[in-house]
């Protein structure tokens, strides 16, 4: 004979708690999706996104993307390095694919004609409130034998 066991008080409380957690609170802003990390790396490269401070609403600013090629790779300067913002960003960009302007560069050790570190500028305009920059960086690194076209998600935020 199959009988249902009685629901105990602790079980009822647990169910209520789960129900409350699952129900969106009225009048609250939706919780934004979590940001990707500000640093990503793989065998051939590492890339970091940094935001300047302070930021002022409506005043143009520049985030810095630091790209490092390693394990015998160099940065492919002919590739149009760009940032493709995603909908987690709360700042304004110049378009859906923002070209990154090359800044300071460092040659590869023992290979002066090749660049292994490159600073890139990402222009944006912050609004009021939390400033989030989130999107995908597109770049390319090469060895003499092969080139890689890479895209990696990066994010960073700054409080007003």
């Amino acid at each position: 004979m199959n009988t249902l066991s009685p629901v105990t008080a602790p079980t009822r409380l647990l169910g209520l708690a789960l129900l409350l957690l699952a129900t969106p609170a009225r009048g609250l802003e939706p919780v934004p999706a979590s940001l990707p990390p500000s640093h990503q790396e793989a065998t051939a490269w590492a890339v970091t996104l940094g935001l300047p401070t302070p930021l002022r609403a409506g005043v143009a600013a520049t985030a810095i993307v630091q790209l490092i090629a390693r394990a015998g790779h160099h940065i492919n300067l002919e590739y149009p390095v760009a940032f493709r913002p995603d909908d987690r960003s709360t700042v304004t960009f110049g378009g859906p694919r923002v070209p990154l302007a090359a800044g300071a560069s460092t040659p590869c050790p023992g290979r002066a004609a090749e660049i292994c570190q490159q600073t890139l500028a990402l222009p944006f305009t912050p609004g009021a409130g939390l400033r989030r920059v989130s999107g995908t960086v597109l770049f390319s690194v090469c060895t003499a034998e092969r080139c890689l076209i890479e895209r990696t998600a990066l994010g960073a935020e700054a409080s007003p």
Partner: protein
Amino acid sequence: MTIRPLAACLVLLTAAPLAATAAEVGQPAPDFTLSDLDGKPVRLADFKGKIVVLEWFNPGCPYVVAAHTKGSLVDAAAKASKQGVIWLAINSGAPGKQGAGAELNRKARADWKIGHPVLLDEAGTVGKAYGATNTPHLFVIDAAGKLAYRGAVDNSPDGERASPQGGTLVEYAAAAVDDLRAGRPVKVSSTKAYGCGVKYAQ
């Protein structure tokens, strides 16, 4: 008596640059015979009287992958073929190098629905005669057999048509074909190719 060796040296010195400029725009395109992926010989001279596009190819190069899956090479060859243009892809990769060998090229041809021949130039002789440096690298030959365009497929060096220089996409090779078909001088006859290096043996 000592003049002859000197003259021979001068001839050699002048012959080298001439050979290097054999595939210059406005000059006759170097003839070649290469085998396709089924071993069938294909000779450039057989297409005299038609516009021919040569596309240096490497299915392992990410720029070639991008161009053939979302860039300017997705349907360029099919469109040109409908206009009577001959399109030949050439892989000058040496055996063992990235993208070399009949099997990889056969797979890419099937995956990307490539209808034109892919020719193997494993010794790199044809690639070097044309000065092919990149994949993709495009050469357009006019109906008289002269080179009319050499360079990039377009002005978006990501291979995806997403970053055109100057903000407007220009498909250089297709534009050269259009100019030739219309009987006009080719407006842009030379550009810098982008992409991977050709994987020559040396």
